[in-house]
């Protein structure tokens, strides 16, 4: 019998942020290799941060990713404050959470409506989706705009906001300016509810994965800026203990570092993990919306991440309204923070998952060492594991269909290749 080989290869993955490639190879009917290659040219942020003033970290790290700059700014300021032994509360804490809600909305809506939903309907992009579902796409654009407006109002602009600083904000947004956003956010909350309902009607491929979920967990809230790092396998640690429990490693086919839990292996961060580990932290009404959409208290089907993102978007609108209702302008708008000869750690929940940063600041206030672990690096090994399952189960599919299914499964995790710092190129080979 002839040896049959089959390769599926996508040199440039579309609808992901950044550049990557996928390669799947079957030999004699057996799946032999799966590789998600990140080829994005490295930009060496950790090296560039050395000898910069500690206060520059939020502006510089924002440039790692134009889709989630707030996440980088938040982890940076929290790490510097942790280094200085400070934890800020009150309105500054509220404003940070509010700014983060804006980023969750903008990023989740972009991903659901423009990058991921077209997959479920077999379309190449949101422009085609707009032909058949014009009102739906317009609704998504308006929701995204509401998230961006929230960031602009607090941060000065939607991409790389300028108002965040170590210790708080350069200038506190005025109460009236935030109040003025309420009607649109209320509309957004209703639209988010309709979004959950719509995403739940999409045809969902069946797949259950035994992920180890990792996310923050906070005693009273759905996690954004603070909490302990917990996992579905019982990990429960303070953020500063990250280096003792996690490690990064390099693989030849990728310019992004991968991460794993020491002695255990790959794990997943992001919406599925946050939701499954913090379902009880969602307000009761939102829990009910999730149940009505067919979600359980945990979700292990990566394709359903689009529904979970919708639930989180609903939460973000709801939380934004809650914060604005009681907001008082902090005065002063920032606290003095002066880390010297110390190391600080922080992790916050970027839309795509846990974003860890640590800094050592010298006696001169300059950064001596920086360490940044974005969510996509952490998820990369798990995305490859999903691809193994999807390719294995989809072996009978025609190449074009299998390729589409593989790409969709990558998008399930909204990988941000720019974040992973470092090109993504899909290849399916059948020998």
């Amino acid at each position: 019998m002839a040896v049959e080989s089959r390769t599926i290869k996508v040199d440039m993955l579309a609808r992901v942020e950044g550049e990557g490639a996928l390669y799947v190879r079957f030999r004699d009917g057996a799946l032999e290799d799966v590789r998600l290659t990140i080829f994005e040219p490295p930009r060496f942020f950790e090296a560039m941060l050395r000898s910069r003033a500690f206060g520059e970290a939020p502006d510089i790290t924002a440039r790692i990713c134009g889709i989630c700059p707030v996440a980088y700014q938040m982890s940076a300021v929290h790490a510097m404050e942790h280094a200085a032994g400070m934890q800020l509360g009150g309105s500054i804490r509220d404003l940070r959470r509010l700014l983060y809600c804006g980023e969750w909305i903008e990023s989740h809506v972009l991903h659901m409506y423009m990058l991921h939903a077209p997959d479920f309907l077999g379309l190449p992009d949101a422009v085609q989706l707009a032909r058949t579902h014009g009102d739906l796409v317009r609704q998504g654009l308006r929701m995204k705009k509401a998230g961006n407006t929230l960031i602009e109002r607090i941060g000065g602009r939607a991409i790389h906001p300028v108002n965040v600083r170590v210790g708080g904000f350069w200038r506190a947004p005025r109460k009236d300016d935030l109040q003025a956003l309420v009607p649109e956010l209320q509309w957004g909350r209703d639209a988010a509810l309709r979004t959950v309902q719509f995403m739940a009607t999409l045809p969902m491929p069946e797949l259950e994965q035994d992920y180890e979920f990792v996310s923050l967990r906070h005693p009273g809230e759905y996690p954004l800026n603070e909490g302990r790092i917990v996992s579905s396998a019982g990990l429960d640690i303070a953020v500063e203990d990250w280096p003792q429990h996690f490690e990064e490693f390099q693989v030849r086919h990728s310019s992004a570092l991968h991460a794993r839990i020491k002695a255990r292996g790959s794990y997943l961060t992001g919406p599925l993990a946050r939701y499954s580990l913090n379902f009880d932290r969602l307000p009761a009404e939102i829990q009910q919306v999730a149940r009505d959409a067919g979600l359980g208290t945990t979700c292990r089907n990566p394709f359903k991440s689009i529904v979970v993102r919708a639930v989180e978007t609903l939460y973000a609108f709801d939380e934004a309204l809650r914060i604005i209702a009681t907001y008082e302008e902090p005065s002063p708008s920032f606290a003095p923070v002066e880390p010297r000869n110390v190391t600080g750690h922080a992790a916050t929940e970027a839309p795509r998952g846990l974003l860890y940063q640590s800094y050592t600041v010298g006696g001169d206030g300059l950064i001596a060492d920086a360490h940044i672990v974005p969510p996509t690096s952490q998820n990369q090994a798990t995305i490859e594991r999903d691809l193994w399952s999807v390719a294995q189960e989809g072996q009978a599919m025609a190449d074009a269909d299998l390729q589409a299914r593989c790409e969709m499964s990558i998008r399930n995790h909204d990988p941000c290749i720019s974040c992973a710092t470092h090109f993504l190129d899909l290849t399916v080979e059948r020998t």
Partner: protein
Amino acid sequence: MSEQLKTLAVWKFASCDGCQLSILDCEDELLTLVGAIRIANFTEASSAVIDGPYDLSLVEGSITTAHDAERIREVRAQSHFLMTIGACATAGGIQALRNFSDVNEFRRIVYARPDYIDTLATSTPIAQHVKVDFELRGCPIDKRQLLETLSAFLNRRKPVIPTESVCTECKRRGNPCVMVIDGTACLGPVTQAGCGAICPAYARGCYGCFGPMESPNTAPLAARLEQLGLDHAAVRRVFRTFNAGAAAFRAEGERHGG
């Protein structure tokens, strides 16, 4: 009719994706835009790719690998009009900080196996490799400037993009001068307008994301910054951020050591 629409391609080199995201951030104009121009190659937004040549190419990001230095030539060959978007493509971006250091050292700091990483010693702007027809400044670009430039292109007119300093925008916006009021270091006097003077409106100094204006007077500003108490290294850092590779900022940074 759609045959007559101009075709648009969007290309990415070393960057954060923020400038191309600005296109998708034109929420109110996006559906009008896709009716006026044919998006032929924009992988971040669509998996449908139409072969070139393209009437207009928007290029984001800087050149940092030998492969990208080759790829930008191919992009140029397929593009009638090529416009760079943002500080990375126009000046080398934040990643141009490597131009002042030893890249091998950078590689070692970030990667355990530096030999797996293919990179050039410098991050360079697109215009250093191919002919660029128009440059949009900013880190990120400004949405209104992007829409103005696209509409100018479609209507075959020259885009209205100011080349004066951020100071003029502060005056227009009624921002009190942060340098005068509380001695805050600000790059506004030497930075090209376009953002709308956001930073001073938020009570902080401009950090130069639109890069140097036409004939900027950087030396007197640097002297003023020193009077405000910044040491040599701090002045150097002020000029070395997102447009560190732009000629005027690079020169001023070098005058301040290293």
